[in-house]
């Protein structure tokens, strides 16, 4: 049993990154009732713009400095948020219509963004090294761990905490929570629903971009990389219950652990575990672990 511990730890670390990704996805679903199929593409866009725009060309051989990395970590969410804002403005025409149109629109956007990435940065993959200061490894209990994996998890965790503080402790955050429950009521309070939606969508996309740049040293860059993270995001928000912050974090950790532990037993099939988990959850417990009705059922 104890040989599972490394997988558990790594699973938890990855889980925090998944949770960060999923929270952005969940904000958009919860407040705007839109499934953003472009979320993965924005994850990729954030990573590409930051890594290939900010970091030097040889970043896959020579570890960039912490300062440059800090800039990259700031640029990624901004780029993704910007693209998200443009998307949201375009998507306004689909509000009020069948939710399928929003889904189709973001699907198209996912394709366009991915092709755009191929256009600018070619279809080949890129590697990138984490900052030199945290690029090493350490050994505990005879197992070698990558330091960056936990630094990344720490950054993700910090971002999650900041997000939580934003939603729970600021007026705008309260409006976002209220908007998730009852958009009409928020509008009746005199709040500009359009601006709120724009903010939420951009914020959600920004979180995806942030996750992208943080995960880049761990997973590398490929134009199609977004597709690998969209499914975990689905699983997490359905499992955790749409609209539940805590649910998303817990589900994110759970998914990370499941993927990691499944990978221990049948290496290549850890991804499959993800898809099967999604099917199992949607078929048997579409309301998530809490059992509450979600906006997806309206």
């Amino acid at each position, binding site marked *: 049993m104890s040989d599972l511990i490394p997988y558990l730890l790594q699973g938890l670390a990855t889980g925090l990154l998944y949770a960060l990704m999923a929270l952005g996805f969940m904000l958009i679903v919860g407040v705007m009732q839109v499934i953003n199929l472009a979320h993965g593409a924005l994850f990729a866009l954030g990573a590409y713009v930051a890594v290939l725009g900010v970091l030097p060309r040889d970043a896959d051989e020579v570890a960039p400095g912490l300062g440059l990395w800090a800039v990259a970590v700031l640029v990624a969410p901004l780029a993704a948020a910007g693209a998200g804002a443009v998307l949201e403005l375009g998507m306004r025409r689909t509000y009020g219509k069948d939710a*399928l149109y929003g889904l189709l629109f973001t699907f198209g956007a996912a*394709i*366009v963004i991915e*092709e755009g990435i191929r256009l600018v940065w070619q279809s080949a993959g890129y590697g990138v090294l984490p900052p030199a200061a945290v690029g090493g490894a350490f050994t505990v209990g005879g197992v070698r761990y990558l330091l960056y994996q936990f630094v990344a998890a720490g950054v993700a965790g910090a971002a999650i905490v900041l997000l939580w503080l934003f939603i729970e402790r600021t007026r705008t955050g309260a409006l976002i929570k209220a908007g998730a429950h009852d958009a009409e009521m928020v509008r009746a309070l005199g709040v500009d629903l359009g601006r709120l939606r724009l903010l939420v969508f951009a914020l959600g996309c920004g979180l995806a971009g942030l996750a992208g740049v943080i995960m880049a040293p761990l997973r590398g860059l490929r134009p199609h990389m977004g597709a690998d993270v969209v499914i975990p995001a689905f699983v997490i928000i359905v499992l955790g219950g749409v609209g539940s912050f805590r649910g998303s974090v817990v589900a994110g950790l759970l998914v990370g652990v499941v993927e990691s532990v499944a990978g221990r037993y049948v290496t290549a099939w850890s991804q*499959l575990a993800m*898809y099967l988990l999604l099917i199992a959850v949607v078929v048997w417990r579409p309301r998530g672990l809490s059992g509450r009705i979600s906006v997806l059922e309206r």
Partner: protein
Amino acid sequence: MHRPGLPSILAVIALAAVLPAVWRSGADVQAEILIWATYALGYNLLLGCTGLPSFGHGAFVGLGGYACGLAQQKLGAGLIGSLAAAVAAAALLAGLCAVLLAGRRGIYYSLLTIAIGQVCWFTAQHWHGLTGGEGGLQGLVRPPLDLGVAGIALADNRAFAWLCAGIFVVVLLGLWRLIASPFGMALQAVKQNELRAQFIGYPVALLKSASLVISAAIAGLAGGLLALKDHSAYPNVMDLHQSGQVVMMVLVGGGLVHFLGPVIGAVVYFGARDLLGGATEHWLLWYGLLFMAVVLFKPEGIGGLLRPTQTPPPEPLPGSPTPLPEAGRS
């Protein structure tokens, strides 16, 4: 959905028949368009007719391709046999999926189909023993079409394009007949108002499942033909992006409102690929933008332009009131 009259259908058939005859080059592309048009028509039975948005239909296409290839390689099946295997395998998978999908619609339906599609794609990628993994099944041949009295060799691309044209015509006519039948009308009723269809007495869940199975069977057939065309079967057709391609095609072509929309969409898609693709390697980006514009501004697509103008209603009865908002609950 607008059902065109016989003249339009005959015109399409004529085009499909004449094209391989007069346009002697690019038989491979012709076959590809015909196969995708067949696939899209079958797909639209589910989306445009029944209102169920599947984003995982590539799984049926891919499975059809593998079933066709395996039937040929492991069972020595001929043309009919391997294509029948493709149809049967896809229909079987659809039957299983129907159980999982029972009672779902809208976003949940889409999510589940995405997940199922990804599971199939993943399985195809990794089950080397059966599918050849990423390399796929290679070395498929095109068995001759055995008509009893004579056999028609299909190794020549043009002959194969004729076969695809023939199958396309059969599917076109079959579906054209189907949407005017009680079954077809019932599916459209389910799309428009599932509740009322239920209360009138229609078996809504079974109807949806039947729609899925038929559309999957057609997708499987298309998959088998694609495998024969390319002499190989790959997993990538099961990917979400590839599954999404048929959705885009059908929408741009106007499948939501016009029976021929999927055919138009297939032609436009490949036309774009050939025209734009000649100019830029990233033509999909422009097609994607076109698709997004269609979703925003003209979801009825090109087919929406081809519908006859709606019959104007006669003058309302004197004394009819102006419409009131719907009464509240009692």
